[in-house]
Each structure stands twice: as structure tokens, then as C-alpha cells.
């Protein structure tokens, strides 16, 4: 259960290999969470993440197998997690793939693969988790969207479009969950220096998984429904949103 100063007890990360996901879990553990479930495609690879969560104070860490693309399997995975650890105080939807724009925009199968993981997988996971949150009458769903989805750009529209879809779904779900005791926090980070972006050129206003985690924890403590990381991106994006398309298309972003 969440307490009156915003601390939680149980955290589920869908996408246990995600740097941002595990940074959020670590931050919540520092604030008193004791049980963490890291769920992802390669649970055997999360040993180090488990270790650092334990040294931060987690008493129970489970690593479970979860494949975002296997949407039929989602209900079973979530049900098993709940039967092991009980109520989900915070669930982080952290999985996603960046794809390779230059390939994906010409290769239908590759483009669909990105969409399957980032959009279909997330839609399924969010729906399954939201059912659990309705049943338990409380809990927060943290959804990692992206500024890339806020106005989709020429340079990464395959990825961007999946985040746009995910963002829209999560925002609508947040409204649907009003009054149920459950809530959704949509997170829109900019360029995050992490495994996912390794080897890429840093964009302006780039940030780190830890900084994103900080923003998320602050948002959870209050009643935020959307947060940007870094916060300045909110202003940047609200300006970019109104740039005429012929200009936007040519922007080096």
C-alpha cells in the first residue's frame, strides 16, 4: 500500500532490463519499497540489477520471464506476480525497442516488430495491469512514453509513432481509471543516455535514467498525471508542437 507521504511497498517493472525501469525501482526502494519484481525477456541477465536493489534495501526481489510480444501470455504472468507478491503499488511499463529507422521505414516486418513491442505489447500489458488495479482498488501505473511521440518526427517516425499510440492509450486509460483508486502517470523523457541509445549522438536536453527516476518519484508523490524529463522539455515541446510542418520536417531533431 502507498502511505500518506507517498512511499510504496511493492514495485513491478515490466521491462526489467530497462535502465530507466530499474532506476525507478531503485529510487522507490530508497524511499521504502521492499519488494521488487523485475519482469522481462532475459531475467537471468538482471542479477546485477537485483543485487543493487538489495543493497539499496529491497528485501524481496523476483526476476520473472515476461515477453512484451507474447500478449496472450500477459494475463498469466501478471496473475502469477500478484499471487506471489500481493497488491501492485507501482507498475512501470518500461519495455520498448528503438528499432533502426533507416531499415524499418523500408522493411514492413521490421516496422511491425517495433510497433508490436512498443504499442501492442504496451496496450496489452496496460490493460491487464489496469484490471488488477481496478480489482485491488489502488495502485499506480507508470508508463514510459517519449517526447518522440508527442510530435512524431521524420527522423524516427517508426519509433515515434508507437510512442504516440502508447501515450494516447495511457492518457485515455488514466481518465478511465478516475475514481477507481488507481492512477496512471505518463512519463515523457527526452533523449536518455542508456543502453537503448548507446552509440547515438546525444540530443540537446539529454538526461539520465536516474534523473528520469527522480522526476517519476516526485510525480508519484503528488497527483501528477504527466511528467517530462527534464521538465524543460514540456516548454520545448509545446513550442515545437506549433511549428508549421514544412519547417518542422527540416528541423535537425
Amino acid at each position, binding site marked *: 500500500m502507498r502511505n500518506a*507521504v507517498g512511499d510504496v511497498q511493492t514495485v513491478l517493472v515490466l521491462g526489467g532490463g530497462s535502465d530507466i525501469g530499474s532506476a525507478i525501482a531503485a529510487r522507490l526502494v530508497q524511499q521504502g519499497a521492499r519488494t521488487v519484481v523485475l519482469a522481462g525477456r532475459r531475467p537471468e541477465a538482471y542479477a546485477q540489477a537485483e543485487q543493487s536493489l538489495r543493497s539499496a534495501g529491497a528485501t524481496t526481489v523476483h526476476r520473472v520471464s515476461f515477453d512484451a510480444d507474447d500478449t496472450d501470455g500477459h494475463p498469466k504472468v501478471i496473475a502469477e506476480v500478484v499471487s506471489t507478491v500481493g497488491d501492485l503499488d507501482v507498475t512501470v511499463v518500461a519495455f520498448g525497442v528503438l528499432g533502426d529507422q533507416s531499415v524499418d521505414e523500408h522493411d514492413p516486418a521490421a516496422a511491425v516488430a517495433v510497433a508490436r513491442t512498443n504499442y501492442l505489447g504496451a496496450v496489452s500489458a496496460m490493460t491487464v495491469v489496469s484490471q488488477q488495479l481496478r*480489482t485491488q*482498488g*489502488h495502485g499506480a501505473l507508470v508508463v514510459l512514453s517519449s517526447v518522440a511521440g508527442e510530435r512524431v518526427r521524420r527522423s524516427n517516425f517508426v519509433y515515434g509513432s508507437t510512442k504516440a499510440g502508447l501515450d494516447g492509450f495511457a492518457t485515455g486509460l488514466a481518465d478511465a481509471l478516475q475514481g477507481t*483508486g488507481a492512477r496512471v502517470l505518463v512519463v515523457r523523457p527526452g533523449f536518455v543516455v542508456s543502453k537503448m541509445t548507446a552509440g547515438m549522438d546525444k540530443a540537446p536536453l539529454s538526461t539520465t535514467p536516474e534523473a528520469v527516476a527522480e522526476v517519476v518519484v516526485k510525480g508519484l508523490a503528488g497527483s501528477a498525471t504527466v511528467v517530462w524529463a527534464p521538465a524543460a522539455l514540456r516548454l520545448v515541446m509545446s513550442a515545437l508542437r506549433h511549428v508549421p510542418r514544412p519547417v518542422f520536417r527540416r528541423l535537425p531533431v
Partner: protein
Amino acid sequence: MNEILLTGWGRTTPTRSRVHLPADTDATLRLMADGNGSRGLLARGLGRAYGDAAQNAGGDVLDMTSLAGIHAVDVDAATVDVDAGVSLDTLLRHLVPLGLFVTVSPGTRYVTVGGALACDIHGKNHHREGSFARSVLSFDLLTPDGEVRTVTADADPEVFWATAGGMGLTGVVLRATLKLLRIETAMVSVDTERAGDLDDVMARMEARDDDYRYSVAWIDLLASGAAMGRSVLTRGDHTPLADLPEGKRANALDYGPKALLSAPAFLPPGLLNRLTVRAFNELWFRKAPVSQIGHPESIATFFHPLDMIGDWNRIYGRAGFLQYQFVVPFGQEGAMRQIVEELVRHQCPSFLAVLKRFGPGNGLLSFPSPGWTLALDIPAAMGGLGPLLARLDERVVDAGGRIYLAKDSRLAPHMVPRMYPELDRWRELRERLDPKRRMTSDLARRLQLL
């Protein structure tokens, strides 16, 4: 049945429950037997517990205020037989004109008898008369096996003391018989004195509390330096008829408290900040007489001053507030002092902080135990509040003290066994009454009580 969000009085952590209005005992019985889902069941009174004690996320909640009959008042024996959902407000409106008063009254009339028993509440007379359960002659407890037991402290001490202070987790209290106090008038004669600092107020309380039935000190937690812990100490007893002016004796038991005003539904956040609270505290301290003997006050003014403002919890705005109440044993005055110093250092904007002395305690999870208790309200949005209170918890435990579960909304679960050494014994007894764990609450989940 109504699916709604519930919070405690502090308005933090809303969760959703199916709230039922049990029309009578049979209806309550059916609900309990239904086993509606796996999220359990909990009785709720007037929702004055500050945290999540009367919430049951995703489960069923019985709104006991619909079972609120007063069955019989025995004026000669000074007892009353009531439904558990009756409020002390309703009860006092019946009893005071008959020359009777509840043996233990908390700082608000808006609690139910069932809630008072479940939290084993205390009043300003704990040093003399103990907690609420001590005035409960018997109660009817509906347990999840469908049985209704009539429980007394003599015949069934285990069930009695597992339920008193058991936070509603042993079953549903349906009805209770209370021992009452005889009063001759509806007035209280109050002695007031100002104390310049914490040592001063504690010395005054230690010296003369036992001469008074009621005693409490309001303490200014923003004053620092030499004035740290400055307080207004008010002590008194019910006024005897002979002390009333002759003209007032005919109507000595008139009693009709009214709420003067209600806080508006929407208030801006941050209304209570260090500046406004400091100004209030200064005024409150200055307006108190330096020393005054036998001042006549009404029952409402003396016992329930905050009830004059309806929904006063709204003044904390949307983020809500919490109350921190702990007790440390006598002999641990140093710990109390350190905690007050730390609160003053953090300048918690608390205009409602009270210091009291407890007498002997009882029960397994019942809060009061001999020592000093301090209670303070704090806005939940205050920066650094979680870590500050966690540090204070450690100090409290180190001093052999505990915090009050009825007020709690943020304690860490591993602290509970350190504060309540009888927790395992309570668990055992509870398990016997409710092996299927039908009874539960958000508090029970958060603190892993079951």
C-alpha cells in the same frame, strides 16, 4: 451497495471499496458470509481515524453508522446499551440531560462506539480512568464464522482485549454496553496556566495532574530557543451543581452543541504554512490566561473545540495531512525532549499539538501505556516529512515507546513488532476468530498486521 473512494480523516491515500449499509444484524451477517471476492471486509464508523484504518481497497466496507440505535439507558446503574454505529455526538445529546457522560471522550464527538472500541481511544482523563475499553462492560462481536458472541473482559479476556485496540480486524462489533459517568451539570470547571517551556509544562503536569480528572497541554511546536515547548495547560473536572450560580441550576444539564461554521469544499493548498501557523500559535498562547482557576466552560468547548468547525480537515487542502502521535514511558523525558527539539528544528507547521500523560495501559494492540504522549498534525505535503518521521519512529522505539495505529498513515511494517511486543499473541488470537482472514483493512495490508 456503493462503489466509492474512501480516505481517512487526513484525506491521504484514497482507495476504492464497495460500501454497504447493513440495514440490521441479519444483513451484516449475510454480507460477512457471502465472502464477496477475496479482498475481505471491514466495518467503518465515521472515518475519523487519520490514516487508512477504516479503508479496505478493492473489498467490502460496512458503513456502521446505519446501525445507530440507543437501546436502553439505565440511569440508576449509569449504563447504556447501544448499537456500535451510534456516534458519541448522538449519545451525549441523549445522556447529558439525564446527568450522564461517557467515561472516555476523545477530542471529537464524531466517532462511533464501535470505532472507539476498535481503536481503544483515550481522552484527557487517561491518567485517571484509562482507555475507552475500560468503560465497555460488554460487546457483541460478529465473527466471520457467523457467530455473534457477547464478550466481557471477565468471561473472555482474550477476545475482549484482542478486539479492544484490534483495529476492527477481529470481527464486526454490533452492540455494546458502556459504563457511564454521573455528572451534575453540563459545565466543566477549568484551570488554565501557561508554561514557559517544555520542562516547565512537564514539571507542572507531573506535580499536579493527579489532582484533576482531565488534563491536557497545548504545545507550540514552532517556538524555539528559550520558549521551546511553551504550552497552555488546561485541567478540570465536571462542575458540581453547587458551584453553579443559583439562576442556572434549573437548567444545569442543558446541552445542545452546534457547529458554528463549515470549512468550504475547496481551499487553496498551503493555507497552513509556517507563517500562518506561527501567527496562530502566538495568538493562542497570548490569549490564554497566565493563570486562571475554575473557569466555567461548556462540554463542547472543553472536550470538542474542533467540532465547532465542520470538515476542518479541508483546511489542509488537497494533499491532506497526517497526525503523528506517540507515547514514551515515564523516565524517558529526555527522549520526549529530543523529539520536540527535532520537530522544532524542522519547524513543522503544526497548530494542533497536544501533550498528555497516560496511566496504565491494557490490551494487545491498544496504544496507551504509562508515559508521555504527544500528538501533532502535519500537512502531508511538507518536504522531507517521511524521513523525519522515520527518524522519530526510531527514537520512539529506542525509548520503549510506540505510535498510535488509529492515527498512523506512514509507519514502516517492520517497526510494528518493535512497538507492540504482543503483536504475535494478538495475531494468534485473531487467527482463531478469523482463520479465513475475511477481516482486513488497508492499514492491515500496509503494516502487514495479519
